[in-house]
């Protein structure tokens, strides 16, 4: 597909939210780590599905059902090609990253035995901590944690020391939602494979910012959400290597995931349907395919360069604020700035920024262990997407310059 040269003003025209006003001010949306806004093409795709194409999939002989099935399956192929999976049946539609991780924790987890070990990292989202704790409790396994340094970088030497023949799975985030750190997942995967462990990468914060190729990474599982990469909420993907997925028991029972059912015995459907019980989020899956179509029209390297420019510019401007402290200063980071200003509470800053039409996230960002590591209750997080501009950063600085003295007095 032909890529258009990246131009932020042109991109913005594709996102109708830019016309939104909040508290009488033009909205500046800096909460992209939580969810992204949607391009018109994705909105149209959803509307068109419900207007003209709505039918259940994989079941009907009638035209509408066949059209819906084709659109849904085409979407799966779009995603497969974009992330470089070998087969389209390695793309499992899920509810989102959390759901994808839980599938692996439950189904792959069935193979684990007492004494086996699962490794996660110090900077995981609660979604990539709790499912593993539940698994460890269920199976009598041990959860180990790769530590990080003050800058928010994982200590890979320590990681090597944690790895052993007991390690069955390593589950690590590609990009930290709270710190912006881009982890060296390639090395993490290689090292795990050397001891025979499998690796799940939490990609919730990745595909919208950087090129992801699951085959080049050689990860065993890759989990992500649609809504953070310009697609609908309620739909996401679990990528898994064919042989692993085949070997795993189903996660949920129901329609679509079966081959034959009798009261004595049920046989399961093949991939990907084995993991897709019940009527899925059809419109969501199709809308997600459209989001990938949008991503595919972009040169992701140029997107990355634009976001890097935003990150560097915002960091440079924020640095001048008296009493500011950044959390997450990894050499290799993207699109996320977490900070606190001495003498102010993040809740107060977030409340007043909202009054000025600027949406940021405040709090612990579902990463309480990171907050405990730094011994802080939370941070103010500014997170960018491809449609953000330097002018918006200027307005953020102006707003902070007005707000901070108000809160400090």
């Amino acid at each position, binding site marked *: 597909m032909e890529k258009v040269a990246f131009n932020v003003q042109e991109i913005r025209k594709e996102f109708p939210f830019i016309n939104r006003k909040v*508290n009488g001010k033009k909205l500046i949306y800096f909460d992209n780590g939580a969810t992204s806004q949607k391009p018109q093409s994705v909105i149209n795709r959803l509307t068109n599905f419900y207007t003209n194409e709505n039918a259940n999939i994989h079941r009907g002989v009638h035209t509408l059902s066949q059209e819906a099935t084709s659109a849904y399956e085409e979407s799966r192929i779009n995603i497969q090609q974009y992330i470089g999976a070998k087969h389209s049946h390695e793309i499992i539609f899920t509810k989102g990253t959390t759901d994808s991780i839980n599938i692996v924790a439950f189904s792959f987890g069935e193979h684990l035995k007492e004494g086996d070990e699962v490794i996660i990292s110090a900077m995981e989202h609660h979604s990539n901590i709790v499912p593993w704790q539940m698994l460890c409790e269920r199976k009598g396994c041990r959860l180990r944690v790769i530590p990080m340094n003050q800058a928010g970088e994982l200590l890979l030497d320590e990681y090597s020391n944690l790895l052993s023949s007991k390690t069955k799975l390593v589950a690590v985030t590609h990009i930290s939602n709270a710190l912006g750190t881009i982890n060296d997942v390639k090395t993490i995967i290689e090292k795990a494979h050397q001891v025979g462990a499998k690796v799940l990468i939490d990609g919730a914060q990745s595909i919208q910012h950087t090129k992801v190729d699951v085959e080049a990474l050689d990860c065993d599982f890759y989990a992500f959400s649609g809504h953070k990469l310009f697609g609908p909420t309620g739909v996401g993907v679990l990528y898994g290597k064919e042989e692993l997925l085949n070997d795993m028991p189903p996660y949920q029972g129901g329609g679509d995931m079966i081959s034959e059912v009798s009261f004595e015995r049920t046989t399961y459907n093949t991939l990907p349907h084995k993991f897709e019980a019940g009527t899925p989020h059809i419109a969501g899956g199709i809308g997600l395919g459209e989001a990938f179509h949008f991503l595919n029209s972009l040169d992701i390297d140029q997107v990355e360069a634009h976001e890097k420019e935003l990150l560097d510019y915002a960091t440079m401007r924020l640095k001048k604020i008296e009493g500011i402290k950044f959390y997450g200063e990894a050499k290799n980071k993207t699109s996320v700035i977490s900070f606190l200003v001495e003498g*102010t509470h993040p*809740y*107060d800053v977030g409340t007043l920024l909202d*009054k000025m039409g600027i949406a940021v996230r405040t709090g612990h960002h579902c990463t309480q262990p990171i907050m405990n590591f730094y011994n802080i*209750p939370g941070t103010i997080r500014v997170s960018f997407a491809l449609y953000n501009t330097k002018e918006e950063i200027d307005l953020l600085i102006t707003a902070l310059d007005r707000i901070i003295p*108000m809160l400090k007095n």
Partner: protein
Amino acid sequence: MTIQEKEQDIIDEFSIYDDWMDKYEYIIELGKELPIIAEELKTDNRLIKGCQSRVWLHADLEDGKMVFSADSDAIITKGIIALLIRVLNNEKPEDIAKSDLKFIKEIGLQEHLSPTRSNGLVSMVKKMKMESLKKLS
């Protein structure tokens, strides 16, 4: 003054501000007048767990009337609590329990009551009423 009269006073005070900035500056000022809870009373059972800002509340019954003191790590939250305490302090427990605190909405602070703000204000109001009910029993 009744609870309603005190609420009306606050509504009148806020009516002079049409700019949100002035309004918040005033709330921040009010935060400084908050009857601060004694440090040794900042115990876990007096902590109201909001998602983002922490609030401690102490309630006592003196001569049949409730007396509150509180603190928070967020200054806007502190200002709003100061308003609540101004309205509910020195009132009878039964009057507090049945108060509807309409002034919060009237002065345009209803957003702080929405569950997504998670600033503990909702829990705060609930706690003040619960403490009052406890004194009744």
